[in-house]
């Protein structure tokens, strides 16, 4: 291995904010060695997928901004998953009207860009369409040919996050997608009842 490459390998959690194109397996090794480190705990909040996480993603509080800034850097420094395997994302809207407004904008421009710190998706359609992620006002996305998604499942597993495989691929802020096909309908069963939601196919630019 060339010495330059060896020098760039992260050895401590703090290095994850400096080195670039870090393999998620290497990042998992480094974080697992420092469970009390602030970076490890920041990443775990995402993998736990519970209340602190949802507050942190949206809150304008300085603490939440500090968390988002670090998570943004951490995600950008991870090497993207280039396997090209499709990933799925379920959406959970509060009303049919909000879903319609959201979808109309995408149908009009055939374009979507992540403007939050990151957008999680799952490798599994079954997981993405589960009751936790899709409600009767929801929808399902299939993202084909992902390019910028970071597969963090190994990281979540090694640091003991609660849900390592629910939202294991994260697209960093600024990832851009094209609406590749006209939306179809997808039928799902919820509590014995059939619901039908839009199934939207996107391709990453």
């Amino acid at each position, binding site marked *: 291995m060339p010495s330059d490459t060896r020098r760039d390998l992260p050895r401590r959690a703090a290095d994850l904010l400096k080195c670039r194109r870090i393999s998620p397996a290497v990042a998992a090794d480094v974080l697992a060695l420092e469970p009390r480190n602030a970076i490890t705990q920041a990443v775990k909040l995402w993998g736990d997928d519970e*209340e*602190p996480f949802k507050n942190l993603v949206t809150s304008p509080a300085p603490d939440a901004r*500090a*968390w988002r800034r670090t998570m943004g850097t951490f995600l950008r420094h991870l090497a993207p998953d280039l396997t090209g395997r499709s990933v799925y994302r379920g*959406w959970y809207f509060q009303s049919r009207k909000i879903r319609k*407004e959201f979808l109309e904008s995408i149908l009009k421009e055939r*374009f979507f860009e992540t403007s939050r710190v990151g957008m999680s998706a799952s490798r599994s359609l079954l997981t993405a369409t589960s009751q*936790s992620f899709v409600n009767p006002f929801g929808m399902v996305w299939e993202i084909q040919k992902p390019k910028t998604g970071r597969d963090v499942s190994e990281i979540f597993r090694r640091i003991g996050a609660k849900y390592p495989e629910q939202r294991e691929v994260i697209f960093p802020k600024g990832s851009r997608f094209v609406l590749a096909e006209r939306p179809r309908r997808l039928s799902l069963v919820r509590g014995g009842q059939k619901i039908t939601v839009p199934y939207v196919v996107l391709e990453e630019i």
Partner: protein
Amino acid sequence: MATELQQLASAIRSIKKRFPAGGKRYNRIVENPYESGYLPLPKPTQKDRAAVRRVLQQRAAAKLSGR
């Protein structure tokens, strides 16, 4: 970098205090701003529009050649 880490460590300490573990599931509370309808989608730039056209043309060509 050291400052960023200090800010993060301080944030993590206060976040843990303010939001104790064992909260409700994220999706049940629905705080995604897109899903709640208060975050407008970013408008595509000229470059984005060109990229959209390029991808759609590539897909159409692939579909035709696959027939």
